């Protein structure tokens, strides 16, 4: 909390999280149809904005150095999730079909390897600082989080196909895998400027994990509807990523490049 209090982006971030929760819950409470449209459009717009922000950062790093590669991979993950959210919206609002399981899931799952590689590349320059204790703690926390997630996602109902079950259980497993480098990252960058970005990405991954688990649980208990509280948590994860990227743009901003060029002249 101290980290968040110290950063200038904290107030707009908290306001965004509050507004998103209020809008989704409010519109769904008034009318489920309006709630569905609002939620779907929010997903597309927020992930779209996230792709643009990440593109700015990736262009700034120009694929050079390990952080350059890392941000390009993060762009890959965000683009994949943007396509997935768009496909989901198209299935739901235009074709009026249940988008799970669908092509959208392919893009959701495709985003995870990119995200994992991003996290690995980001902490690569400081990998020597990773202790065995740190690694064991991160893996333990991650496994502890994955077990209830997998249990809730897997359906023993014979009507549910093995394919659906594979897709459903892939989410908590993938979430817990990307959680390991995220936890390591946050402990490595502790007290540094980069820490705020890591905190947000790590909290974002936790939100994504909780949202995915909640979504799978709601799907199999047939209580899910677009605009469900799990959507708020999932949207929060994108917002947290977006603010993390925005904070990074501010730290390693264009002004720095201009100033340093002046200095070198």
């Amino acid at each position: 909390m101290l980290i968040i209090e110290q950063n200038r982006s904290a107030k707009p971030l908290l306001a965004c999280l509050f507004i998103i929760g209020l809008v989704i819950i409010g519109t769904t409470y008034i009318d489920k149809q309006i709630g569905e449209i609002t939620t779907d459009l929010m997903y597309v717009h927020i992930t779209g904005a996230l792709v643009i922000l990440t593109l700015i950062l990736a262009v700034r790093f120009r694929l050079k150095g390990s952080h350059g590669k890392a941000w390009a991979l993060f762009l890959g993950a965000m683009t994949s999730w943007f396509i997935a959210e768009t496909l989901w919206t198209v299935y739901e609002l235009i074709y009026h079909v249940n988008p799970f399981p669908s092509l959208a899931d392919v893009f959701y799952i495709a985003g995870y390897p990119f995200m994992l590689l991003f996290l690995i590349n980001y902490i690569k320059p400081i990998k020597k600082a990773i202790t065995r204790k740190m690694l064991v703690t991160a893996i333990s926390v991650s496994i502890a989080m994955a077990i209830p997630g997998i249990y809730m996602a897997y359906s023993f109902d014979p009507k549910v196909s093995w394919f659906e079950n594979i897709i459903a259980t892939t989410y908590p497993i993938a979430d817990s895998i990307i959680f390991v480098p995220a936890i390591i990252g946050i402990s490595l960058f502790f007290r540094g400027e980069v820490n705020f970005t890591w905190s947000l990405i790590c909290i974002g991954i936790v939100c994504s994990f909780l949202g995915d688990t909640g979504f799978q649980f709601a799907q199999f208990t047939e209580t899910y509807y677009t605009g469900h509280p799990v959507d708020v948590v999932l949207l929060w994860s994108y917002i947290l990523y977006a603010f993390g990227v925005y904070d990074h743009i501010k730290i390693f901003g264009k002004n720095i490049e201009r100033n340093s060029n002046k200095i070198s002249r």
Partner: protein
Amino acid sequence: MKFFHRNKEDHFESKFIPIDSGMNYDKPYIMKALVALAIDKTLLSIGKPVLDKVTNELYKKYQCYLPDCYDHPEYLEDILKSVFGSSYHTIVHAITVELQDHMSDKGIEVLIKTIGR
């Protein structure tokens, strides 16, 4: 053959002064350049904006440049700590590896000790 070294008064926007003796060179300047190169190489391996951030912060806070870290390693220590937090030691380790062959120089030894404390 003539060798050159920088005027001590204005080291960055400097004028080069010719020296007649063949093997004469100003060691602290060479060491400063080596330090700057080591920091430059280490930070560039992470990303150019990271190097830009460090050089910019050095100038903003202490009005100094990378070669000046040879005389004021505490400036570099402060900036690296503020940017990288706990992982700062790994960056220091990478810089140390780059400068390993020149540890016999007193200034570099002091720099490594200061930033590595």
